[in-house]
């Protein structure tokens, strides 16, 4: 993409995040029960949802790569990039969650279903990232990673429904949740939605950048293959064969 558009994108992300911060810190009211702690909601929930989105993208890209007809090197790289960003957001969710838990639950960590499944999701994708980084060539790696990604994705719905399936300390279901705050309908809901939007922008930005880097590293579109061949021929004319 052209420089202009790239910077435009970056700027948009920054602005969106800034606005979210303002909304979260000043506009939205603090919570009856939790006081200011509730403002973590605007970071915690979006990052969790973006993590889902990232892993979903990874799964889809993996499928596209697995299907011979749609296979392009880019899908493999996109899957990797999205997974890495997803791992970051999952880590964020965990960190913010436990930060939040301290004041609200009086503990950093609780072995409840939502938290545990989230931790497992985190490690599953850490493993996936490690699998990608084994120094194998894209060909050796591609199929294994794609399948690993699909297996790992099975955990995501479990994380989401964990709160319904098991008796958990963690908030259940919807954001419009009584003991969280009665007045969520108004500015809170808006802030949350806006925050999700901002995070989605951030996610898109990060993934695109990571994808570019990955493509420079190893993405081999046809022309790059051509160039590699040309290079090799040039190089080996020197060597007496």
């Amino acid at each position, binding site marked *: 993409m052209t420089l202009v558009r790239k910077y435009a994108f970056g700027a948009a992300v920054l602005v969106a995040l800034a606005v979210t911060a303002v909304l979260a810190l000043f506009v939205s009211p603090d919570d009856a029960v939790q006081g200011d702690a509730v403002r973590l909601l605007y970071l915690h929930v979006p990052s969790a949802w973006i993590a889902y989105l990232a892993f979903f993208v990874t799964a889809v890209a993996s499928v596209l790569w*697995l299907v011979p007809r749609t296979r392009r090197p880019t899908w493999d790289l996109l899957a990797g990039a999205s997974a890495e960003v997803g791992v970051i957001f999952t880590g964020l969710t965990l960190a913010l969650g436990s930060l939040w838990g301290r004041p609200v639950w009086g503990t950093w960590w609780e072995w409840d279903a939502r938290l545990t499944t989230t931790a*497992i999701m985190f*490690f*599953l994708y*850490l*493993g996936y990232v*490690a*699998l990608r980084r*084994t*120094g*194998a060539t*894209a*060909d*050796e*790696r*591609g*199929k*294994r990673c794609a*399948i*690993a990604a699909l*297996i790992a994705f099975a955990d995501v719905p479990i994380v989401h429904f964990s709160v319904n399936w098991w008796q958990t300390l963690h908030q259940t279901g919807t954001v419009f949740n009584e003991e969280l705050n009665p007045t969520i309908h108004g500015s809170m809901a808006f802030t949350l939605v806006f925050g999700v939007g901002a995070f989605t922008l951030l996610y898109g930005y990060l993934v695109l950048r990571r994808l570019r880097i990955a493509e420079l590293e190893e993405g081999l579109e046809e022309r790059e293959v051509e160039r590699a061949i040309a290079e090799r021929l040039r190089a080996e004319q020197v060597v007496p064969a």
Partner: protein
Amino acid sequence: MMFVRDALLVAGKDLRIERRSRVALQQILPFGGIVIVMFAFALDADRTSLPSAAPGLFWAAVLLAALLAIGRSFTVEEANGARDGLRLSGLDGGSIFAGKAAAIAVELFLLEVVLGVAVVVLYGVALHGAVVLVCAAVAATIGLAATGTVYGVLATGLRARDTLVPLLVLPAVTPVMLGATRAFAAALEGSTSEAWQWVQLLAAFSLLAVAAGVMAFGPLLEES
């Protein structure tokens, strides 16, 4: 038919290698035993808490031993490019999976029996509900072996397979660990019905794992 024949061929091969090298018997089994003992240390050896912790520790020990067994099963496929050999052999991926998983499962069963006795003795556990215990063990073991085999082949030929496998397998088998632990705990407390629910969960997981393995193994053996 062909499928079974090939699976048996592969399982036979793996078990014969084991009979020759006695790795599972003379190395992995003692390892499991040591782990059981070490855990007793780690828990500061207050006998009171041990029985309650027994199911968890037993399965943790089994899991660690299983990691070794899985690693071993694919170390064998790595020397002399045996992996390419398997690909060239013309065997169907599904049957290779079935064979290798079966071989691992067999080794794990024996391991569990021995470790089980050890736990009962060392941790002073009182046994209840043998039937449900056995069923839970069977279901869990199949799940372990299947999952492990899938990730094992996923990592073969890659750099540092022997560290990658544990990393990939551990999170994937947490459901098994959880289910098995809870099943055992419930059974030992005598609440059999609850135990059976966990067994069902384990069985479901194992079925999924086996199905996934049979389908995915062939493609995984093939690079790209």
